């Protein structure tokens, strides 16, 4: 009984109320014909459109296409980025040679690579993978480098005095020590990745949630546009939640109960 | 025992105070029937096992938290009871355990903050007052430094000055010298004695360090383990201003033995209670 009471605190009610107010305001701006915003579709129409969408196979196909693109590009970025970050973080010499190149390319927004990517990769699909890869690659590398730098030297000394060899220090101290930064890099990277994917799909894609939203736009199908936006939001949210889940699994010492 | 009581303000009366956290849930009784008096201008030191509820009492006097039974009076005015709780104000200053100097303000800006937000002084006047205080304790060269550029001992001294410039009735210090080494502590004690002899505020000083307690206090209030009650009040009959050679005196050593015995009993109980809770 006490548990149930705790879920219905003042905060929960306020949150619920605020969402109701938000929907009501949305309805109201259309009703009052507020300039520009009056062109929004009614919330009810969006809900109807959403209900229709989830029953169609095309909608779920777009989910699948976007998810595959995200995870392929993202995974490749981690597989290349994490070792690269560790290497740059650990070796002064390697850092000297590679970091400047890295810093030269990093400030270029990933979306600016779209034309070159289309030009270089033989298929559109590959170029989208590449762009998604870029979206999270630089972020993960930077975070790993910082993560390695933030490991206290005392930990290394402690390990050495306990008789650890170089290999042990790498696997037992450096890798777990930089895990928190890796997770931060993955979380931030996932956000940027969705941003890049949406742009890439709108500009060059076939299928996918971004493309579907774009097609709704070219048909001026307002409710579908908003259904598309909400779907993208939900998909992005699920991906971030997945990363959090995985990070909890790998870092039991950081787990919050 | 000469209580340096020029203004006669700052008498605290704690009457049968109790505090229960989360009465409907976990129900932790932090204090029960805790009563004692602090005279105006008295230096009272509170000692007791960790987690026994000393800070709970401080929070109630300061106005950070409420109590669930009993009453606390400041100069015959009810400041805390289950039905009434007055808010934090400039008559009761707190110096925090981990320090709470604002890191984004320089030393003078920190010290002048109080008088300026209370609009008690104009800026030049407040600056002069702050510089005057700093130079009296030999810290005049740090006025434009930021707190994090200073050692923690100096930070703590500045924080005490920041409290004193407001001329509070009571200064409450919650283990202010925790984490300082023995040599730094000696400096801090001299500083506090010097300050106390000129300022004459009532002091409410929480500590774990028994030497500190006897060296500084007019009286040492020893608390029991949770729920906290007063176990014993030891009056310290050492002359003011306290000087370090006192620590070798016969009276001092007797006092220390007395306090140590009382505290040790409670510490053992607290330890056993901890063992029980773990099991």
């Amino acid at each position, binding site marked *: 009984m006490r548990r149930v009471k705790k879920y219905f605190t003042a905060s929960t009610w306020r949150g619920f109320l605020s969402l109701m107010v938000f929907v009501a305001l949305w309805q109201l701006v259309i009703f009052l014909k507020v300039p520009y915003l009056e*062109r929004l579709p009614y919330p009810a129409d969006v809900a109807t459109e959403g209900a229709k969408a989830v029953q169609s196979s095309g909608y779920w196909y777009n989910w699948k296409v976007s998810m595959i693109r995200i995870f392929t590009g993202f995974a490749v970025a981690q597989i290349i980025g994490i070792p690269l970050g560790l290497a740059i973080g650990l070796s002064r010499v390697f*850092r000297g040679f590679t970091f400047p190149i890295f810093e030269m390319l990093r400030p270029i927004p990933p979306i600016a690579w779209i034309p070159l990517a289309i030009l270089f990769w033989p298929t559109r699909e590959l170029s989208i993978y590449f762009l998604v890869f870029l979206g999270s690659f630089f972020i993960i590398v930077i975070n790993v480098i910082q993560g390695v730098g933030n490991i206290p030297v005392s930990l290394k000394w402690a390990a050495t005095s306990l008789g650890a060899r170089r290999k042990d220090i790498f696997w037992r101290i450096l890798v777990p020590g930089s895990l928190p930064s890796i997770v931060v890099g993955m979380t931030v990277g996932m956000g940027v990745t969705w941003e890049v994917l*949406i742009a890439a799909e709108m500009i060059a894609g076939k299928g996918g949630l971004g493309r579907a*939203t774009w097609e709704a736009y070219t048909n001026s199908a307002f409710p579908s546009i908003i259904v598309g936006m909400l779907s*993208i939001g939900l998909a*992005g*949210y699920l991906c971030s939640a997945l990363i959090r889940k995985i990070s909890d699994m790998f870092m039991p010492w950081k787990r919050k109960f | 025992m000469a209580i340096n009581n020029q203004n006669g303000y700052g008498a605290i009366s704690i009457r049968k105070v109790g505090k229960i956290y989360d009465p409907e849930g976990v129900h932790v009784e932090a204090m029960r029937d805790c009563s004692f008096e602090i005279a105006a201008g008295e230096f009272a030191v509170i000692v007791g096992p960790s987690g026994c509820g000393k800070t709970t009492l401080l929070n109630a006097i300061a106005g950070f938290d409420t109590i669930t039974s009993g009453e606390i009076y400041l100069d015959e005015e009810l400041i805390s009871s289950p039905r009434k709780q007055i808010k934090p104000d400039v008559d009761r200053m*707190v110096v925090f355990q981990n320090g*709470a100097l604002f890191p984004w303000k320089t030393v003078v800006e920190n010290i002048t903050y109080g008088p300026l*937000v209370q609009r008690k002084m104009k800026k030049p006047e407040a600056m002069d007052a702050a510089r005057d205080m700093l130079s009296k304790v030999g810290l005049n060269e740090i006025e434009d430094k930021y707190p994090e550029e200073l050692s923690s001992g100096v930070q703590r001294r500045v924080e005490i000055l920041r409290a004193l410039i407001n001329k509070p009735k009571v200064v409450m210090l919650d283990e202010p010298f925790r984490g300082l080494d023995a040599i730094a502590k000696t400096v801090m004690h001299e500083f506090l004695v010097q300050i106390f002899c000129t300022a004459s505020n009532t002091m409410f000083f929480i500590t774990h360090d028994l030497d500190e307690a006897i060296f500084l206090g007019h009286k040492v209030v020893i608390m029991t383990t949770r729920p906290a009650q007063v176990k014993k009040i030891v009056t310290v009959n050492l002359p003011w201003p306290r000087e370090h050679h006192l620590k070798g005196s016969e009276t001092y050593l007797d006092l220390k033995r007395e306090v140590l015995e009382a505290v040790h009993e409670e510490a053992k109980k607290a330890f056993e209670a901890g063992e029980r809770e773990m099991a």
Partner: protein
Amino acid sequence: MIDRIRTGLANPQLHRAVVGILLFLGLWYLLTAVLQLPRFKLIPDPLQVIKEWFSLEPLSGRSLFTKTYYVDIAYSIARTLTAFGLATFMGVTLGLFMGWSRIFYDFSFPVLEILRPMPPLSWIPLAVLILPGVEVAVITVIFIAAFFATVLNTLLGVFSIDRNYFLAAKCLGSRPKDIFFNIVVPGSLPFVFTGLQIGMGIAWMSLVAGEIIVGQRGLGYAIYEGYSLYQYAQVICYMFTLGILGYASSAAIRAVGRKLMAWEARKRGA
């Protein structure tokens, strides 16, 4: 002075940096111009890019010595700064109030949490259809991008402030207004600036996407136009131009941050 330059030049990290970048350019040249490997031969080599960038009469009509180049830059900067300025102002204000007032937080946070996961670029279609004119739509999308990063980090900043600072301020006789300006604002600044850095990065990215998708003029638009007109060297020049602008803007934010947070800088120096 000369000694400092001399020791600077003797730094092995500098030598490695030069060698590294030369190797990178050499590899690029080798793959595209010398070996002309299958996919690589479509990409212009570094010499072509540099030639185009510094040309008095560029093939694409866009180089360091043409007016168009600077008009493109001016358009992009104007859009980014307008949106970023608005986002900073509104985002920081909202974030501070959300962190300061529990009730305001309870009411606004759920709405924020529903809108936030939507990538800013997914707003493009709606913005274009609803808002008057493409310019407003692009700026709105950049605004959204920077806004969420700023609000969220400001909020985190307020939450990061040690509770004792609030209690101490109350003891010292502060009114709510004093606490807001003396504790909440300076205490959250370090996080606010992190938010501004992130926001600036996302803003540039959204700008490029916005300009490619709907824009007229601006660097993103010119990149896509260069691509359609087979001016690949110009595409690369513009990518680097964007990189330089992005780098410069985040350096500017860092500089302002150092100026406003003297205590942080001194702590590091000590």
